[in-house]
């Protein structure tokens, strides 16, 4: 098994491993050194821990939802609790986990290092953004503790303005989380504009940075609209301003326009960075230069722009005019094209490569299958006549999860496994990770594929109860969700074991050519001993395995890895 090649090598720590020596984790100690840190890597780790905790909360609620749906009528909870549960699941997964997931946790760690920089442009703002996330999360949790919210994560009016639950707390939480997201986006845009190293022109940036750049633009432009929408909703509940209340001359459908003007781009806030990760990983693990770099980069920007113009496809049956339906349907189909281009480019990258089926690559393959299904089922929903039938059914639920879990979550897992050795300086158990990746794939498909069938047969989403004919689909789905749950338990086990007793990781375990791998694992607080000079980020063939070092080194080039890896211990300032 190729994947085990590094395991077979030296039992001693790889020479570029900084564990037990000076690195960003060991430089200072104590809780205060973490809570007040301005180091983007530590903030990233705090984000990672926090969003994984949110994922746990969202995941448990998902399992409870699926258990309830084992049979029609009440299984383990009543309708009111069920409604609160799916609201909790949606709101936590969207606002707390998947939107900040890749940018704030992985992006925060990697972005400055990919730029060869010491930090993001505004480290204090970065920390502020984290604490805003924490405050927003506290509000969300408080709304649950004080009795829950039963509106669904979309907070549609007038239901949300009339229901007797803690809508204000949860929406205020989402409002604050929005500012956390805006600050991260601002930081990334400025960092990418102003902190690129010598030699890194726009079209020599790693594609993950293009993905984060597109995401940051969306965060900055779309999130304020969410902020004002939620503010109006809060005002509506607190003061009765009536903007969305038909009884006071308001228009409840206007809320939907506002909400989706943010929330459709938000879908791309979630998927663009995942696509960036896939672009990195597919090149490294095919041991080949990425195919069609420019098209992948530009398609990220095309997606970012087009995604602002398609919000109306969430409202095809809400009574908007046929003309609006025509325009939004057309633009919806157009936004599919850049994603298709990316998929073909990734496939072409694998062509004639030397495909290394390590865990991150298994997630890439998984991504191609699942995102493929997610994208293609979008065609059904984009076609107006078919959309009328499928709208608000489980078909949409399945489509959404194929894109968000099959796309973003799988991309996140690919990135987590890819950068894990860099973040913590230790490898994980490769065999366990591979088995888990396959189990995630199986569990996911079992859970969600049948939902396409249930949906096209007519099962409405957000249903506590269902007709007997849908029982079989729901039972299969629930079994799948348990497999998925098991897979995540396994993942938690081997990742925690890795932290405690994983093999020390080399500076560059995968043979990547981007800058973050050209320093020790884990990196020193300053990231690099000398500011590195950027070359071609996909020149992975120039990096070859070195038995003695236990990692990849640059061969044939003028710069050896030793020259850019700091001599550990001298990095202190």
């Amino acid at each position, binding site marked *: 098994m190729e994947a085990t090649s590094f395991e077979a090598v030296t039992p001693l720590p790889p020479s570029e491993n900084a564990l037990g020596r000076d690195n960003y984790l060991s430089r200072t100690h104590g809780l205060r050194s973490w809570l007040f840190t301005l180091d983007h890597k530590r903030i990233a780790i705090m984000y990672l821990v926090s969003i994984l905790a949110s994922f746990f909360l969202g995941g448990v609620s998902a399992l409870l939802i699926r258990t309830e749906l084992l049979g029609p009528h009440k299984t383990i909870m009543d309708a009111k609790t069920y409604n609160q549960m799916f609201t909790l699941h949606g709101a936590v997964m969207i606002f707390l986990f998947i939107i900040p997931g890749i940018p704030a946790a992985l992006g925060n760690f990697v972005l400055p290092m990919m730029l060869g920089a010491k930090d993001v442009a505004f480290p204090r703002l970065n920390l502020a953004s984290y604490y805003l996330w924490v405050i927003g999360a506290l509000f969300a949790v408080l709304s649950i503790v004080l009795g829950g919210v039963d509106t669904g994560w979309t907070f549609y009016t007038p239901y949300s303005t009339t229901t007797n639950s803690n809508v204000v707390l949860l929406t205020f939480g989402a409002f604050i989380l929005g500012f956390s997201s805006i600050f991260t986006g601002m930081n990334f845009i400025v960092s990418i504009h102003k902190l690129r190293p010598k030699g890194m022109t726009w079209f020599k940036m790693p594609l993950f940075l293009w993905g984060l750049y597109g995401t940051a633009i969306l965060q900055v432009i779309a999130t304020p609209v969410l902020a004002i929408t939620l503010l109006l909703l809060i005002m509506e509940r607190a003061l009765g301003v009536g903007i969305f209340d038909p009884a006071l001359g308001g228009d409840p459908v206007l809320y939907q326009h506002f909400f989706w003007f943010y929330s459709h781009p938000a879908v791309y806030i979630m998927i663009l960075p995942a696509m960036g990760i896939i672009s990195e990983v597919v090149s490294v693990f095919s041991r080949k230069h990425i195919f069609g770099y420019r098209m992948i980069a530009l398609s990220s920007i095309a997606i970012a722009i087009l995604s602002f113009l398609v919000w109306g496809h969430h409202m095809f049956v809400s009574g908007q005019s046929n003309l609006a339906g025509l325009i939004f*349907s057309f633009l919806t189909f157009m936004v599919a*094209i850049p994603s298709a281009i990316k998929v073909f480019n990734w496939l072409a990258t*694998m062509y004639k*490569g030397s495909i290394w089926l390590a865990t991150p690559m298994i997630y890439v393959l998984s991504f191609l299958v699942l995102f493929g299904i997610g994208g293609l089922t979008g065609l059904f929903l984009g076609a107006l006549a078919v959309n009328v039938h499928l709208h608000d059914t489980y078909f949409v639920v399945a489509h959404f999860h194929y894109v968000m879990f099959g796309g973003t979550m799988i991309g996140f897992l690919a990135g987590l496994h890819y950068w894990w050795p860099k973040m913590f300086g230790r490898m994980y158990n490769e065999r366990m990770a591979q088995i888990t990746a396959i189990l995630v794939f199986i569990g996911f498909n079992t859970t969600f594929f049948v939902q396409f069938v249930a949906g096209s*047969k*007519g099962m409405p989403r957000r249903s506590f109860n*269902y007709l007997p004919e849908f029982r079989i689909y729901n039972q299969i789905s629930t079994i799948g969700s348990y497999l998925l749950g098991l897979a995540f338990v396994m993942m938690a086990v081997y990742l925690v074991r890795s932290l405690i007793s994983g093999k020390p990781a080399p500076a560059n375990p995968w043979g990547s050519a981007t800058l973050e791998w050209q320093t020790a694992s884990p990196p020193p607080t300053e990231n690099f001993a000398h500011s590195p000079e950027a070359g071609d980020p996909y020149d992975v063939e120039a990096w070859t395995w070195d038995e003695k070092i236990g990692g990849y080194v640059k061969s044939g080039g003028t710069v050896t890895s030793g020259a850019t890896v700091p001599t550990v211990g001298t990095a202190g300032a």
Partner: protein
Amino acid sequence: MPGLNLLHLLYLLQLGAAAIADGDDFFMPAAGSTSAPGVDRIFHFILAVSVFFFLLIVGLMALFVAKYRRRPGVAPLPSPTHNTALEVTWTAIPIAIVLVIFVWGFRVFLDMSTPPANSYEIIVTGQKWKWLFSYPNGTVDENLHVPVDRPVRLVMTSEDVIHGFFIPDFRLKHDVVPGRYSKVWFRAVKAGEHQIYCTQYCGTGHSEMLAKVVVHEPGGFEKWLADAGNFLKKMPPAQAGEKLYRIRGCAQCHSLDGAGSTGPTFKGVWGRKEALKGGASVLVDENYVRESILEPQAKVVAGFEPVMPTYKGRLTDQEITALIEFMKTVK
């Protein structure tokens, strides 16, 4: 060439799609309206396109993984890092395909949203958590009764929050919004029953907000309508009263099981002495109930807001009597 085989498969799939276009297949429920086959044909076309591309992507991926799997001592083969002709091709072909789907989908959608001139009109009201269907002769029913093979136009509005009116067998769906009217139409193809769902989340009873479409044989609808309009004469008063309780909006505020709501429960209310706002009290008898229906603000039970609208002119004496008879039976 795997591509060629896949093209064959695409062709076969399309044949299959045409064959099952209006049947009960793996994905779609049986078609019950004249619009449904048109929708199903697009659905199956997109399905065929999707299966083709899915197999293409996954097939190539599997092929590459098998063929170019990493082996010791074998370096990646030299290959270009971009190819403009190829990249233009795989941009242009998807654009062409999605344009076909877009135009097709929009044209069928237009047909679906344009009702024929001589449609029979039924008013639909959504409320938490049931549907009410009002017919031209004043009949109100909880199920949608329609004649077969005649265009029916639904004019829909909501009394509270947004609901979604969905008949899967007719491939028909539209949001039902408070404060405005949504209009849809359909033409049922054969007699029988079809399921109606609410698809827009509307609270605790969202998934229970069900109803049936009953498609009548030719002539059967008119007979049903005449009977339904006459139920006060055909049913015992208490039973007719129960029907009125359900369809005339009483159920929204007055429970039958003792649960608290906007208004007092009907459970055990008959013959009870109710304390009124302001200290007085009243015996719940025929006269008090009649007064409360016609002049709801006259004597408001303590602990409740004076929010009930008057039913003067909206309920006949006969209907009020039926309601009174029904209230007597709620123990």
